[in-house]
Structures are given as structure tokens and as C-alpha cells.
């Protein structure tokens, strides 16, 4: 049995058990290792991907539920101007310490900016609240949001 997924603009066929959470299919079968497992409980945001343009956690929902939907992982973000701008802003702001949360945050900020071109501080915090960072890089991530949205 196989499933068809659209990932980063490409059609991919996967053979994993349809009950497998999307994250494991991305990392283990498709070798897209950018999305991270932090909790497996949808509590930390390390596994965030874009699904039809919206941020979703990929660590719990079965891969079968993503069939026919447009998935973008951190590896595919650079295909859009917004994604590139966000990535550059993270680099400019040194918006990481260990970097394990970074992929999920870059995904979330890209989604935020595609919905709200100039989010204020409160909107940025609200959008990023599902994402944990344990090193305390938050101020730099918020700065990256400002840079990427031309508010710096």
C-alpha cells in the first residue's frame, strides 16, 4: 500500500504505514531531516511544517491525513521569497543558540508573514507561542521577525 504526498512542490509516493505520524515519514522514509522531533505530543513546535500554507505540527497526525494537501518543510521554504527573507533575517539576527527549535520557528515565521506582512510584537509572540526555545533565543527570534517584515 502506498500514499501520494505533495511535499515541497513535488509529488512523492511513500510506503510507510498510513498510521505513521507525518514527521517520521519525512525524516525516516523521505530523508528530510530538517523537521525535528522534540516531544511527539504537539507541545513544542520543533516538528512544525506548512500544510496548505498553515503551520501544523507533524509529530502526531497520521501521514494518511495529509494526502492531497500541500506540505512545505523547512527544506522547501527557500522556494518562496518570504521563506528566503525569513531565513536571511534569522541569520542576520543570530536568532538561534543550539538551533534545535530553529527549523520550526523559521516555518512559523514564514507562515506568519504570509498572513500578516507587518506583525507587531504581540502578534509575533502569539504566533510563536506554540514553539519552545530552551536556550532563550526568543528576543533574537522576535528581532528576526522585525527584520524580515521590514520593521527593524
Amino acid at each position: 500500500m502506498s500514499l501520494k504526498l505533495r511535499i515541497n512542490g513535488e509529488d512523492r509516493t511513500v510506503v510507510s504505514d498510513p498510521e505513521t505520524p507525518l514527521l517520521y515519514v519525512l525524516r525516516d522514509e523521505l530523508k528530510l531531516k530538517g523537521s525535528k522531533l522534540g516531544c511527539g505530543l504537539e507541545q513544542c513546535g520543533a516538528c512544525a511544517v506548512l500544510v496548505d500554507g498553515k503551520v501544523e505540527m507533524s509529530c502526531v497526525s497520521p501521514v494518511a491525513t495529509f494526502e492531497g494537501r500541500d506540505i512545505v518543510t523547512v527544506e522547501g521554504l527557500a522556494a518562496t521569497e518570504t521563506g528566503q527573507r525569513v531565513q536571511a533575517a534569522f541569520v542576520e539576527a543570530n536568532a538561534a543558540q543550539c538551533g534545535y527549535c530553529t527549523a520550526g520557528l523559521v516555518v512559523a515565521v514564514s507562515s506568519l508573514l504570509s498572513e500578516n506582512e507587518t506583525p507587531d510584537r504581540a502578534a509575533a509572540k502569539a504566533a510563536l507561542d506554540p514553539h519552545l526555545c530552551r536556550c532563550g533565543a526568543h528576543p533574537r527570534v522576535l528581532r528576526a521577525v522585525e527584520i524580515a517584515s521590514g520593521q527593524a
Partner: protein
Amino acid sequence: MSLEDYPRVSDWLALADGKLQVRTGKVDIGQRISTALVGIVQHELTLWPAEIDVQPVSTKSSPDEGMTSGSNSIEQSGHALRLAAATLRAKILAHLSDRLGGEANDWTLDAGELTGPGTNRPLVLLHVLAEIDLDMPVDPDARIAEAGAVKGLDMRGLPELVKGSYRFLHDLDLPGMLHALVIRPPHAKARLAEIQGDLASKLEEDGFHILRDGSFLAVAGPQEWPVVRAAQRLANACDWDLGDGLGDGDIFSALTQENAIRLTVEDGKPVKDAPIPQDLPDTTHRARYERPFTMHGALAPSAACATWDGETLEITTHSQGIYILRDSIAESLGLPPEKVVLTFMPGSGCYGHSAADDAAFEAALLAMAVPNTPILLKWIREDEHAWEPYGPASATEVAAKVGTDGRLQAFSAEAIGGTFRGRPRTGPNQAGPAKLLANHFRSNSVGPQPGAPNMNRHGGLQRNLVPIYDIPETRFVKNLVPEMPLRTSALRCLGAALNVFAIECFMDEIARERGADPFAFRRAHLKDGRAMAVLDRLESELDARPLAEGAGRGIAYAQYKNAMTRVGASVDLTVTDAAEIELHRILLVADAGRIVDRDGLAAQLEGGALQAASWALHEAVTWDRDGITSRDWDSYPVLRFSGVPEIDVILLDQPESKSLGAGEASPGPVLAAIANAVCDATGLRARRLPMTSDALTSLALQE
């Protein structure tokens, strides 16, 4: 220690692949140390970042610099590398003078190029380096380059991180590799009675490998999710003998002198067999401050990869101390240490001794059971929360005698708590193996063992127990409670977090009671000019930042280990009607000596401040007889984006002083500044962490 043990330039620097290779024993655990080390070498030799690389840190080839901990890396590895590079620069200039004429000081080095008498065009440093034997002693008096900004010092790895192409240990994917998980008992006292039915053999028929050694149970297989499912099924089929369960009485009432090994502390150091000094007579003030068991809470569950080829055990780990871990794994398995090779690969930030070492040993056990096969073993979130070695619950009791002139005449501090010494350091009675979690459960079990006191200056519980203030009469006592209900080890700052919290809250309480200005009260007891400069700058910055209506402001000051980075902190916050703390702004003024990586230094101080904010407002391990109950990020809440205040860091550069580590300098002052601000806003004095709305509400009811 670093330069004494590795005194030659070739111990620290090598030329390979057309780049200058930095050799260090210190590892990147989220603190960006490799960026700073590259910056030091870059500055001394005027190279560009792309011309320098950092060799993987491995027990096979790297200098043994002990642990990457205690904010020591800049002082140890950084100092050694600075002198090695400065020695090399002098050698290069002398070499060119010999070869091409002129005096050594006729030659100049700039932007990685050398010019001298009669050179038509500059010589490339990396080319000249190839002519030089780096096997020469590091000159401890080598002239180091003048302080100044390092060109193009960007965070190593960041461009790859934002694209998702950076590789963590967790991302390893080796040919023939198996994924592995451990099935944990309900709690530390439980033992595996049996696995019901024939599930284990059925799983083995399906191609899974199952390892059972006493109560240590693990499963491995070729794909990650099926292994997760198999582990869940196995867990459901396990019958455990639960024993007496975990001790679940009130931990703070167990933190007493009666339950402790007591040691007098002199000049920051415990003294063996010295009598405990008498209590201070006529004290005017007395208070006790407390902290619960606290998680490291690494964002990534711990992991390791191991392969056993019948002769050598190769382990990839995100451990902070690959040498001591190698020795304890070798001892546990009866292998000679040289047959065990550990290589570092980044995991997530760890903030102290997380479960990284436990995972490395567990991967090794599976690798020995399934030879010639790489085993990538990962912990799961619930296990990381339930089984990592926590920062110990502790209490600090302070007392003082304040004279009629408002000065402190006498001061006493006693630290009481469990051990921070949970790292697998080898020693008598299998002390190293006893600290590896799996050894507690194997059929030939070792450990856990009661805590033994750390006797080092500003080690363990006594870190920053001695205030930085000038007080005529003092007494200090360390009280190690050797038996604690939960396993504990080193957590960022060790005792300094609670001790600075205690001392700086206490200073605030006394000043407040006397109506004294908190800056003036501290200054009256300080002699250190650099401390004064930090406080002066903090005060003048605050003068320019009026406090919002209804908000409270608190300050605190400390110098890490009374010898490292100085930090003055202020916090502005409000306490809502629901007794919840809303942090508005944190301001840090810091003196970390000569600045190497300005942005990296600021990031470490900010990160420490925000981790402290998380400790202050949220973090506490919970448990009952049946096991740990804080097993995820809902039951163990931490600071999220919505709770993050504005934060400013002001760095006072000291170009003529040595560079100091700063990763643990800000948490203590920020903890105290938060409590002092809560008191300023509400009049409530919170002396136990975390300051949750429930805690503040009960304090208000006691008033």
C-alpha cells in the same frame, strides 16, 4: 588545566585540507563556544572564518579538557588557543625573517597576508604555515593581539540551521543503522517481573531485536516509527514489581541540617573535618529560600549512536564530558578505555548534565548485543522529563546582624540540598558506572549511590554561597543531603542560582526594611571597582527608564563564583489580579573581561536570564509514590514566547583583562531581581521558587 596538560602548539592547531584546524576539547552545547574559539584564533592570526575549521571533538584525537561546564571554556580552551596562535604568529614572523631577510618585526601580518622587506606581493599565511612545524611549545608570554572587533564572526552553523540542512546527532542515518528505544519502569524503585505472553518472541520474529538485561529492556529495528510502536506494545506487556514506590513526603521539610553531611566552608571551599562554626549571636535578620527539583528540559530528547565491531566500541554522543564518560562506559562493560572511542556531535542545548551520558551507555549496550550494526538510540519526551538527572531541590538559610549604622556586621549562610555531582566520573566502588542510569537496572546492577560532597572551591552547593560583600564576621556551612528521593546532577549554575537568589533577596529585604536605597546599600558593602562600575551603569540606565504605573522594579548583583563575570540585573514587572507575574523588561549590565564574541556573549547572558525567568515563574518537578507526574510540557510548563520580556544587555568591555565565561553569570541575579520586583509591586516576599500564581496567592493569604 588545558595548557598545562597540552603545552604544544600542535596540541591546539593543525593544518589540514588547506585550512587552519582548531583542536579543542570543548563542545558546542548551544553556547556557541566554537564560534568564540574560531574568533580568538582568527583575531590572533588575522584569518577569515572560512580559513579556519574546528576538528570534531573525539577521545581519539582531541585535547582532554575535562567537562564543557562551569562557564570555563573561554578561560581554559580560549586562553590556550589564544597563546598557541600568538606563539605561532611570532614563529611565522621569525621564520620569514630567517628565510627572506629583515628582522622579525619588519614583517607584518594583516588579513591573512604577510608583507616584509623586499616582498613584491604579500605572502599568504596559510601557505607559509605549511613550511612550519607546529610541534613547538606554546609560549605563555607570547604577545597577544590587541583587543578589537573580530571581522565577520558569524555564528557557526546558522546558515545551515535555517535551511534545515544542519545535522544534529538525532539526524544520523548510517547504512544498516537500527533505531532503538528503551522501555522504562514506572519509577526508579520498580523492577521488571515479566513480559506477559509471547510478545517479545513475536517481535523478534518480525525482525526486531530485544535486549533484556535484568530490568533494562530495549528494542531496536530498522525503521523509527515501528520501533516506537513496538516499544509501546512492550511497555503495555510489562509487569513491574513496584517496591515501596518513590519517597513522596514534603521535600523541603527533609532539607535539614539533621539529614545532611555538614562541612564548614572557608573562602568558598569546604574544609574536611573542621568544626562547624557556632551560630552567630544577636542576628537581626534571618530567612530561608528554597528551590524545587528542576529539569534541564532539553528540547531534544537525549540520543546516541553506537557501533561495536567485536573489538572497538565507537559512540557518537552529545555528552558534555566525553573522557569521563568513556572511562565509565569502559568500566561498565569491562573494556579497556582505549577500545571505547567517543566523538561529539551536537544535540540540543543541555544546560548541564542531562540524560546524554545515559543515552550513550544505553546505545552501547544495544550495540554490544547487535554487533557490526550502528544503533541510534533515542529517548522519548516523557522519559527525558521523568528520568533525566534533575537539578537538586535545595534550600539556603541566611542570617545577618545589622548594626545601628545600617551596615552588615555579621553574616551566615548555609546551603542545604542534594548533590549536583551526578556525572559518571570514575572512582572507588564503581562510582562512575553507578551514575549511568541503565546500570541501576541491569541484572548485575550498580548504583544508585548516596551523594558525596564536592569539595572544590565554589563547587556544588557552595557555589556563590559566600557573598561578594565586605562583612566583618561570617560563617558558611555546606549541608549535603546524601539521600534524595530523585536522581540529581549538575544543572546550569549549580548552587549559584539559589545562593545568589537568597543573598540578593536578603540584601533587598534588609534594605527595604531600613528604607535604604538598594544600590546604596549594596555599594556600602562593596570594594571592587568593577562591581561599582556595573552598579553605577545599571543605576544610570534605570534613571532614564521610568517605571510604568503599577509595576514593580527589582535589582540584584553578583559575580559568578566571586571570580568570573559580574552581572547587575534589573527587572520590571507587574503582578496581575490573578496573581500572575508579567515580565516587562530585563536589563543586564555585565563585565565579562575582554570581549571575544560580543554577540555570542550577549546571547549567553540573555539566554541565562530567560532560563532564570522560566525557573522563577514556572519550573518544578512533581511526583508521587507511583512515579514522576511532570512528564510533558503541560505538566512541566516553561517560559514561552508570550511570557518573554524585552531584554537589553549592556557589556562593559575590559580590553586589558582576561576573557571570562558568562553562560551562568546572569541566572542568579535575574532570579533575585524578579523576586525583589514582585515585592516592590505587591509587598509580597516570595522565598520559594517557582513564584506561581498559586504560590503568590497563598503568600497574600498569609499576610
